[in-house]
């Protein structure tokens, strides 16, 4: 995965490792550990979305739905059937992969606007199901009393334990994804993004690869959803609605979708913006989201990581061809 990425990873790991100890002594910011747990969970979704959008060039406005499917599968299996949470998490990934396959095969034949609309429609349908299947999901009023995650025979309850667990998973997933990108598979994904016809001509089954990367992104969203379930221990359909799908796209775009680091930076930044700093604006929050999305799409298509010459050569072309 390249020397440069290992170095960045080392730096990021050190930062993540010491971060809690920097903020915990100060009361005003000690809850940043909690915010970072959410940032880590969302990062898993956004890493998958970055593979899909930034590398393979396919848009999805359904990531919140996969996040939700993972979350509800975990929630239902553990609270109603007493299944081991880790097993339930695995179950969630299987469900998500299956759903992503069923939806992905016909959807990914579509391009651009139609793909966006199809994933959007799918996401809204899933959300309606969450709200309507009251017996299973608790409906709009939500689902509560979801058991805690256990590890080595102990409940994981403290923010700090969650922090290291979630970020540990994030780094494992990052390493996995960097390896994928720096391989035959990753090259094929970039090839699909650049020129589908040419990719086919050298033997890349473009449709199959698009579906598989869509499934991978769904599986990552599902793992994130399961973690989310056990962290907050209650679920509500509004955490998985269209606005959240758009937020995930926003997180990836703010950071820069052509780089996994961009997805990570964007997610952490936007989680802080959403959970912390925009609270000041209260009702204006939604306007701020719209404005940020617009400004990034119009003026900074390469995202934050494209600022200052970092990956400059890709800057202009960050969005080029994506989803067309």
């Amino acid at each position, binding site marked *: 995965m390249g020397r440069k990425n290992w170095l960045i990873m080392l730096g990021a790991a050190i930062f993540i490792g010491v971060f809690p100890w920097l903020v915990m002594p100060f009361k005003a910011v000690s809850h940043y550990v909690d915010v970072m747990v959410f940032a880590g969970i969302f990062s898993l979704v956004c890493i998958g979305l970055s593979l899909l*959008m930034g590398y393979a*060039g396919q*848009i999805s406005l359904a990531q919140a739905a996969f996040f939700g499917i993972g979350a509800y599968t975990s929630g239902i299996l553990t609270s109603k059937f007493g299944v081991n949470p880790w097993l339930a998490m695995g179950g969630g990934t299987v469900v998500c992969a299956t759903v992503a396959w069923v939806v992905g095969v*016909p*959807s990914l034949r*579509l*391009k*651009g*606007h*139609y*793909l*966006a*609309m*199809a994933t*959007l*429609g*799918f996401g*809204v*349908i899933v959300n*309606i*199901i969450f*709200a*309507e299947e009251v017996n299973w999901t608790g409906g709009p009023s939500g689902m509560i009393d979801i058991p805690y995650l256990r590890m080595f025979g102990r409940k994981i309850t403290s923010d700090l334990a969650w922090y290291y667990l979630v970020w540990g998973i994030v780094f494992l997933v990052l390493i996995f994804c960097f390896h994928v990108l720096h391989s035959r598979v990753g090259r094929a994904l970039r090839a699909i993004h650049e020129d589908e016809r040419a990719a086919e001509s050298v033997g890349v089954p473009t449709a199959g690869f698009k579906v598989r990367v869509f499934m991978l992104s769904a599986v990552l969203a599902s793992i994130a959803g399961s973690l989310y379930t056990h962290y907050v221990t209650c679920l509500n359909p509004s955490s998985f609605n*269209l606005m959240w799908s*758009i937020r995930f*796209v926003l997180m990836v*775009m703010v950071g820069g979708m052509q780089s996994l680091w961009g997805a990570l930076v964007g997610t952490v930044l936007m989680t802080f913006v959403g959970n912390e700093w925009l609270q000041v604006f209260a*009702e*204006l929050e*939604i*306007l701020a*989201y*719209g*404005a940020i*999305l*617009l400004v990034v*799409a*119009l003026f900074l*298509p390469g995202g934050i990581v494209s600022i200052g010459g970092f990956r400059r050569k890709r800057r202009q072309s960050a*969005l*080029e*061809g*994506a*989803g*067309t």
Partner: protein
Amino acid sequence: MGTDFLQYVISGITIGAIYAMVAIGYNIIYSVTEIINFAQGEFVMLGGLFAVFFAGTLHLPLYLAFICAVAVAGCIGLAMDRFIIGRARESSVLSLIIITIAVSILLKGSAMLGWGKDPYSLPAFSSGGPIMVAGAAIQPQALWIIGICALVVISLTLFFRKSVYGQAMLACANNPQAARLVGIPVRYMVFLSFILSAAIGAAAGVIITPVSMMEYERGALLGLKGFGAAALGGLGQFFGALVAGLILGLAESFCAGYLSSGYKDAVALVLLLMVLFLKPEGLFGNREAARLKKF
């Protein structure tokens, strides 16, 4: 049973007419620019809420409020193209999708600031009780909706078929370079398409508000269902949009009546997915032409 059925048909046609108008809004912009405007639904919402503002707050007569609301929405559509989409004309499809989504969030947020989160209603366009037909009640407003929808479809069809402007607008979509060469002001036609599309969306919003009220977050779903109608009818097909809108409205109304009212919103979306998956060129679209488009 028979009466229920008739009642569902009537409400299905009413809401279907609204979807058809939203779909026509998509079609106009798509015909001229090949852009799908994800903010289309927000214009419906804005139309309703502005009519509430003009009629309820400023106490204008209803017809004047209707005209003002449509005019304001038209201006917002113009502004959207002039200040935002116009800057991104050369962007990729993905950028354009994100940009129109951003606009829709901005419009929705502004509406929330302006009107709060409560739903608002308007008085019906004509007073008087429901008309009874074979035991089913037809609200006069339903007739207004159907009538205005029919008027829009007919006048647009005439506009695009007969008038010089309409022909010029279609020429822009087919081949902008050639259109420019024969002296059609393409830029102006694009403006016009955004104004028209916003205005028609807003008109749909005004006429539906007396029936089902209007609030700031209704836009997205109306927009999505309207897109379902546009896709089902075949993008760019005005008559197709009308038929498809009615099909969607009826399906939704029957689902709400006979199956489950909770899932009625899902019906149109499931239909949308089925169309996109099985017949993306729509019922009335041309498969050959569809292959050349950007989807």
